[in-house]
């Protein structure tokens, strides 16, 4: 039986199906339909309103880099595609819940020590943004400003990331149990039906 400590809005089969459909839309040229689905899922998953900076962080560098090498139109097209995939994936994971994602991966046969990784990576996002802010403040407190600050910033952040990875690896080895906690069985929810219908509607109408 699929058990969960965190209420999931949708079930894993819906996550996989919607992701596959959105990728299919993008590959087959239905970019508008895919981006609408991505936006709706991003809003329903709370990504659009709670993480606007994350969206900018993904969109702006993509737009700039592709515009330099391939022109503005290609840059807009690529940015929309990248944003669609990231909004869809993060919105779906947000609605599924990290704990349920872990159970799902374990149900698929992924060992517990590996299935906990996506959960840890997502949790690390908060810590990572705190580390970036603290590093910025520390460097500014040493009189390093402007472009020099941006060039120097990655060094303490990366060193800290390597050190944290080592600590996390030790903690995972020591703390995560070998026993799997899940089997593959899900009962569809109302949200599954709603999101699936929306995606199919976009696929056929747009």
């Amino acid at each position, binding site marked *: 039986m699929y058990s969960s400590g965190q209420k999931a809005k949708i079930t894993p089969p819906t996550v996989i199906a919607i992701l596959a459909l959105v990728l299919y839309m993008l590959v087959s040229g239905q970019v508008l339909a895919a981006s609408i689905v991505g936006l709706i899922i991003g809003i329903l998953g709370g990504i659009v309103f709670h993480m606007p900076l994350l969206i900018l962080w993904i969109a702006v560098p993509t737009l700039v880099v592709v515009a330099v090498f391939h022109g503005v139109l290609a840059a807009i097209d690529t940015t929309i595609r990248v944003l669609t995939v990231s909004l869809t994936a993060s919105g779906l994971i947000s609605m599924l819940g990290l704990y349920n994602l872990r159970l799902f991966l374990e149900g698929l046969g992924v060992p517990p020590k590996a299935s906990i990784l996506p959960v840890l990576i997502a949790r690390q996002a908060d810590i990572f943004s705190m*580390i970036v802010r603290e*590093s910025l403040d520390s460097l500014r*407190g*040493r*009189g390093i400003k402007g472009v*020099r600050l941006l060039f120097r910033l990655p060094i303490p952040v990366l060193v800290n990331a390597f050190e944290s990875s080592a600590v996390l690896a030790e903690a995972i080895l020591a703390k995560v149990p070998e026993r799997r906690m899940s089997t593959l069985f899900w009962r569809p929810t109302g949200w599954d039906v709603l999101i699936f219908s929306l995606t199919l509607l976009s696929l056929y109408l747009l």
Partner: protein
Amino acid sequence: MFRWVFRNVSLVGRIRDVNLTISSRVTAVLGPNGSGKTTLLKLAAGLLKPSSGEVLRPESVGASLQNPYLGFSSHTVIEDLTLSAGSRDEALRILREAGLEHLAGRSPFTLSMGEARIISVLAAISWNPEGLVIDEPTSGLDQRYRRWLARLIDSLRIPVLIAGHDIDFAASVAQEAIIMKRGTVLLHSNVDKILSSEVLDRVGLEPGPIMKKALKLGLSPSRVARCVFLGSEG
């Protein structure tokens, strides 16, 4: 003359309605975890902007924050100090004066916490700022380095704000202290008054054994602390 002025300063979720005029050369900000000490220091250094109110501060303020390793960005200590000091010669002079030239070729990321803290403070003053803030100055420092840092702070000619829980260290270098709790200032007075006030107990802070003894004997705690850390009564 004032060094820092906080007028009705609030930062949502962190500190509220802080009114302070800091005029002593070294001031200690004391309080339990989560009381807003770091936020106050970052506001004083211009690293944070208040959501309301106004902070008047020196033009340039150096900062040594809680995690010293996050301010390092070169492969050797000397290269790292050169970034702030402006030239390699100046960086070497600072290390020599501090008696730490043996660390020059080491990677800053392999330093012990105490050494990293000291290098972080040296980096924060190496660009000649007009003020200095040090968060948790004695965290990770052994007694030798605590004394060393107390002497360094005592020798500076710029206003300094320190924050932490080490009351004995604060008493040795600071003339005034501020007690914070839950984002507000409970008390701002000279160090001796603060150490003998019951507010310390109310916020869960406790002086070390030497300070307790000094208070029991009716001695000035700050003078005793200066004797212990600086070898002088000031």
